[in-house]
C-alpha cells in the first residue's frame, strides 16, 4: 500500500489552472449552442415534412390513386423513421446524467437494446416499403419525365440508397459497440 500512497501523492500534485473568465464565457457559449442546435434540428425536420407534403399535392398525386399510394407510402415511412429518431433522441436526453452510475448504465443499456430493435426490425421494413414504392413509381416517371431526367432519378436513387444503407449500418454498428461496452462495465 506504500506504493499506492505514492501514486495518490503524484495524483494530487497535478497542476490544474483555475478557469479564466474567458473559459466561463466559452462554456456559456457552448450551452447556448446546444440549445440552438436543438431548435435548428426541429425547424429543419418540420420544413422537410412541409416540403414533402407540398410536393405530394403539387404534383397532383392525390388525383392518381396508384401514384398517390406509392408516394404516400414513401413519405409515410420517411416521416415514421424521423419520428422514431426524434423520440429516441428525446428518450436518451431524458435519462438523467445525475443518476448513480449503476442506474444510469442499466437505463442506457435498456435504451440501446430498443435501438437495436429499431435498426434490425423497423429500419429494414421501412427501407423495403420505401424501395418497393419507388419501384412502382418508375413506370409513371418514365411516362411523364424526359429520358435524361428519368435516368438521373433512377441512378441517383440507387446512390442515395447505398449511402443511406452505409449510414444506417455505421450507426447500428456504433450503437451495438456501445451496448457491448455497457454490458462489460461491471
Amino acid at each position, binding site marked *: 500500500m506504500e506504493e499506492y500512497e*505514492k501514486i495518490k501523492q503524484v495524483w494530487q500534485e497535478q497542476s490544474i489552472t483555475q478557469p479564466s473568465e474567458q473559459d466561463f464565457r466559452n462554456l456559456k457559449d457552448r450551452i447556448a449552442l446546444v440549445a440552438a442546435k436543438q431548435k435548428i434540428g426541429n425547424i429543419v425536420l418540420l420544413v422537410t415534412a412541409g416540403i414533402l407534403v407540398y410536393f405530394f399535392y403539387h404534383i397532383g398525386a392525390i388525383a392518381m390513386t396508384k401514384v398517390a399510394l406509392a408516394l404516400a407510402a414513401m413519405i409515410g415511412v420517411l416521416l415514421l423513421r424521423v419520428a422514431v429518431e426524434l423520440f429516441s433522441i428525446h428518450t436518451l436526453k431524458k435519462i438523467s446524467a445525475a443518476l448513480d452510475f449503476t*442506474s444510469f448504465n442499466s437505463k442506457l443499456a435498456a435504451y440501446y437494446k430498443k435501438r437495436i430493435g429499431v435498426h434490425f426490425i423497423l429500419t429494414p421494413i421501412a427501407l423495403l416499403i420505401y424501395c418497393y414504392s419507388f419501384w412502382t413509381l418508375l413506370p409513371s416517371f418514365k411516362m411523364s419525365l424526359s429520358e435524361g431526367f428519368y435516368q438521373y432519378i433512377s441512378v441517383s436513387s440507387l446512390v442515395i440508397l447505398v449511402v443511406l444503407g452505409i449510414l444506417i449500418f455505421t450507426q447500428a454498428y456504433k450503437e451495438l459497440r456501445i451496448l457491448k461496452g*455497457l454490458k462489460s462495465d461491471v
Partner: protein
Amino acid sequence: MNDLNQQFEVIYRDNYEKVMRLCRGYASGDAVLAHDLVQEVFVKVWESLAKFKGNSQVSTWIYRIAVNTCLMRLRKKKRYLFQGELQNEVVAENEGQSSIKEQQFKKMYQCIAKLSSTNKSIILMELEGLSQKEIAHVMGMKHEAIRTRIHRIKIQLSKCVTHGGV
C-alpha cells in the same frame, strides 16, 4: 444575472479543478480531450441544475454527472481510450517539470487506463480523496462492495506502476 446563473457560476468555479482532474484520468492525460469533457460535464450540470433538489451533496451530484458524462462520451469515441493508450499531450501542462515527474504521470495514467471503466471511476474518486461512502453513492453500489473493490484496485494499480502490468 439571475439566481440560477449565479449558482451555476459558483458551482463551476468551486468544482472545476476536481472535475478536470477526473476527466484527465478518463482521457489518459490528454489535456485537450479532458478540457472538452469538462465543458460537456458542465453543460449537463447546467441542464440538470434546475432539477437538483439537494437530496445529495453538491459534490456527489457533480461526480455522478462527471462520471456518467465522461464514460458516455468516451464510449461513443471510435477508439476507446481505455485500452492503455496514452496521448502525446499527456503531460503538456507539466513540461516545465522534471522528466522523472513526467514519467510518473505517464505511468500513472497508463496504469489507470488499463482498468475497467467501473474500477477506473472508483479509483479516480478515491485518488481525489472522496470517502468510500460517497463513492458508493456516486456508483450506486454497496459500501462493502466499494471497500473490497478499492482494496483490489489499489493492489492492481501499485503492481502496474511498479512492474508495468495489471
